[in-house]
């Protein structure tokens, strides 16, 4: 399972420029951009560092980490490469000057930074993964297999085109087994196992509670109904007439109880719903977020260098108890629902996000959004508008300046032009951004993995083989 952790720290305002330089130094090798050290971190998919500056707050440093497995196994690998850099970067934060941490950042300090990192780590409020079954070693391994197959097939596929699809599979498997002995062993975990683990990852921890609540409700309701119907199980087998009468009364009572419960729920929801609608109609929004040519040039200069792009955004949460309640629960709902509905990487019909997450920071006063996605900013934001507007509106609709919403999920992001300008304005440039596979989209990762999964199969029937051959 992939994991996302942000380290979020307030920056000493006087040290912002120093911090910026130290972050840049992480990837600077003799004046050129170099990711060699980051490539040595065995679980790391994407990493970013940025400083959010805001007129109302001291600058905020956000260190984004998207990796395989748990934080316990990840941080030692990071420390082996970046310990000195991180020590000098963290030294620019306000926390580094506070009581217990001061000694960590004194000149020549060598104590582990991990406790400091753990103390200031945030887990996402809601997150999404594109290729959840694919660990970094597997992604890199499968890319190698894909490229080798492309060379083996060549432009004309002359060695393979005399076969039918199952024959192509068999011949390619035979060729691949010579090269990759590991294809004879089963994948651990298999794609299906890894996907299934993820799919139920948010439900599994609360399952005992759900069962408990269900049993209590069903038990209470059942006893009540039996009692109302005058049937007591310990009084022996009732007659057929009694059973028929009981069944009639039971059905009526059950329907009555459900109706009463629904009515109570509706009545209870009316007041909060009306309060929400009042807010939605009276909240201030930002019709034309100011964007200067200079800002846009900076983003354009940074974007579209590889097949993926990065987006880092921070917005203020709207004030008031209802909004605070709504945003926490909207993100909680997304946290639970995303693995169940988007386990295959598709949000609606879009599968372009590798790792994305929302995190409430600053005592839930600000909402951070970080995303590592395929294609251009324009195509990503258009996908949001066209294919995932409701989910986005649910998460971002409680934030300051967001386009007007209706019933939490309607309108909002569907105001395309306005939403895109709002999103752009909320963004900050990353100072460091690293991708472990600059040439792979989510679709390509899954395509490569499916090819390898197919190669492990000893034989294929025609239909399956044809579908597999289409991936080559």
């Amino acid at each position, binding site marked *: 399972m992939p994991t996302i952790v942000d380290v979020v720290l307030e920056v000493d305002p006087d040290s912002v420029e120093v911090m910026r330089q130290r972050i840049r130094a992480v990837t600077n090798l003799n004046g050129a951009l170099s990711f060699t050290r980051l490539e040595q971190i065995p679980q790391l998919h994407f990493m970013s560092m940025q400083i959010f500056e805001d007129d109302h707050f001291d600058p905020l440093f956000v260190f984004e980490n998207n990796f395989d497995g748990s934080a316990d196994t990840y941080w030692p690998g990071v420390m082996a490469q970046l310990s000195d850099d991180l020590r000098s970067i963290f030294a620019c934060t306000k926390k580094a000057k506070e009581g217990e941490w001061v000694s960590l950042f004194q000149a020549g300090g060598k104590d582990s930074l991990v406790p400091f990192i753990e103390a200031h780590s945030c887990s996402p409020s809601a997150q999404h993964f594109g290729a959840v079954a694919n660990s970094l070693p597997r992604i890199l391994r499968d890319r190698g297999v894909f490229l080798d197959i492309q060379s083996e097939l*060549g*432009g*004309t*596929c*002359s060695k393979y*085109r005399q076969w039918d*699809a199952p024959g192509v599979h068999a011949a390619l498997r035979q060729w691949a087994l010579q090269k990759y002995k590991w294809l004879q062993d089963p994948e651990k975990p298999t794609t299906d196992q890894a996907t299934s683990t993820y799919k139920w990852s948010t439900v599994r921890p609360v399952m005992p509670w759900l069962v408990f609540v269900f049993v209590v409700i069903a038990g209470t309701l059942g006893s009540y109904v039996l009692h109302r119907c005058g049937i007591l199980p310990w009084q022996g087998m009732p007659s057929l007439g009694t059973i028929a009468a009981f069944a009639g009364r039971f059905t009526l009572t059950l329907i009555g109880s459900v109706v009463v419960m629904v009515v109570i729920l509706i009545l209870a929801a009316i007041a909060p719903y009306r309060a929400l609608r009042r807010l939605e109609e009276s909240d201030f929004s930002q019709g034309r977020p100011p964007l200067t040519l200079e800002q846009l040039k900076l983003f354009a*200069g940074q974007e579209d260098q590889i097949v993926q792009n990065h987006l880092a955004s921070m917005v203020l949460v709207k004030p008031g108890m209802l909004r605070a309640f709504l945003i926490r629960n909207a993100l909680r709902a997304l946290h639970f629902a995303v693995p169940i509905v988007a386990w295959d990487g598709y949000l609606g019909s879009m599968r372009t996000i590798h790792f994305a997450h929302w995190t409430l920071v600053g005592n839930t006063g600000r909402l951070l959004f970080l995303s590592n996605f395929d294609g251009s900013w324009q195509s990503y934001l258009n996908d949001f508008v066209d294919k995932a507007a409701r989910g986005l509106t649910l998460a971002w609709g409680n934030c300051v300046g967001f386009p007007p919403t209706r019933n939490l999920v309607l309108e909002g992001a569907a105001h395309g*032009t306005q939403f895109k300008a709002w999103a752009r304005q909320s963004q900050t440039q990353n100072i460091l951004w690293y991708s472990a596979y600059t040439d792979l989209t989510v679709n390509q990762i899954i395509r490569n993995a499916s090819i390898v999964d197919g190669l492990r199969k000893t034989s294929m029937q025609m239909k399956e083989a044809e579908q597999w051959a*289409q991936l080559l």
Partner: protein
Amino acid sequence: MGSAPLTVPAATSANPEWKPKGETAADIQGIIVSAYPKQHFAMFMMVRFPASPAAGANGWLAQLAPRITDATGERDMCLNVALSAAGLTVLGVSDDVKSTFSIPFQEGMTTDNRARFLGDAPATWRWSDCGANPNCVHALLMVYALTRSALNSAVADEAATLASFGLTVAGQILLQVNLGPHGERREHFGFADGISQPILVDGNIPVEKRALNETPVGEVVLGQINTYGTPAVGPIVATSTMAAQHLQGAAMEGFLDLGLNGTYIVVRQLKQDVAKFWNNMKTASADLLDDSRKPATDEWLAQKAVGRTLDGKMLNPAGPVDGNSMTFFASDPTGYGCPITSHVRRANPRDGLAPTAKDTQDMINATNRHRIMRRGRIYGAPIANRYVDDGDDRGLVFVCMNSEIERQFEFVQHTWLLNPMFGMGYNESDPILGARCPYSIPSKPVRQQPMIETFITPVGGGYLFLPSLRALRYLGALR
């Protein structure tokens, strides 16, 4: 590719096509609503304004405005004009007003970031919209005529008028029409072109009631309702007595609408190397098998690269399909007919990228948010022998109109045409427009992947503003 249709099979349409009426028809430049199908002869005149004194440019626009072809009816001779951001500066448009124009238009096509995004190398271009380029175009005068002699005399008249205002013609491109055996317009490689076009309809028609190619008029015409259900945002100017004589009120209090009934026009001069194309098709197809598993021909490969037959029919596993109303998901999901990364599928994927059948309508709706109205034509004479390079300069002047350059033209160019990972591609590009790369042709039992060379090189281009007649009169009166 992008020349306009002459004889296009009628696309399935559920709603009447948008036609400007009354004042709007008299305010809108004719090229927006017509490709001038009868005017086979055209000249693009690249006009350069002197840096100072610049009043000549305003005077020229003022006298030009009454002669500009509007949308009220057919004319024998058609005249339209568009301006670059650098041109607006010379005309005296203030920085405040310029900042209300679309950002790509303000920046121009050739900035470093944009060139990288569009896959261009504009350092050697013959002309552009960049103010720093010595061959910067300030205005593009588009002249269309029924005969070559009528065109020659109109161009001579326009050149004389320009000279009388102290303006120079930095360059001219003579546009041709090359008709195929069925009267269809063909580009230099020999393919029928300009078949896929959006059909503009009233922007208030909800998306679920629009047919496949129907697109809200605001996707092309500024100030009209666009795909998001709001008026397409164009430039505005602060209200003044002079401006109020020409322009209508804008949605914002205190401003007048400079963009209303105008559009942004994208022009790219694309040089085509016809002999290189056909020779590459010949060598690259040498060891391939066609759909019936016989040795492939150069025409088979060329048609697979374009995605249509030479006479314009869409490739399909069941045989070529006429017209522009075909979708891909149901009849050709895997691209055995029309390859997924072929030119036409990249340029307009319709529902072809939908992951499941239930996503097809959403995918069509999303695709239709990136439509462009094309008005391109070829330049240079057709080649005599397509395998022998005669050294002539020929190609296509791609022209398209859209109200949001980033979401329409640039999206099509970057996210679809040149996207290395489009569809099932891995480090591929558009087989016609893109740079040298392997091209995957879905085949049975397994894909074929010839190496496709570079045949098309942009040699000039720019983002221009095609103003309404009112806006033109206002700009003429600025100094």
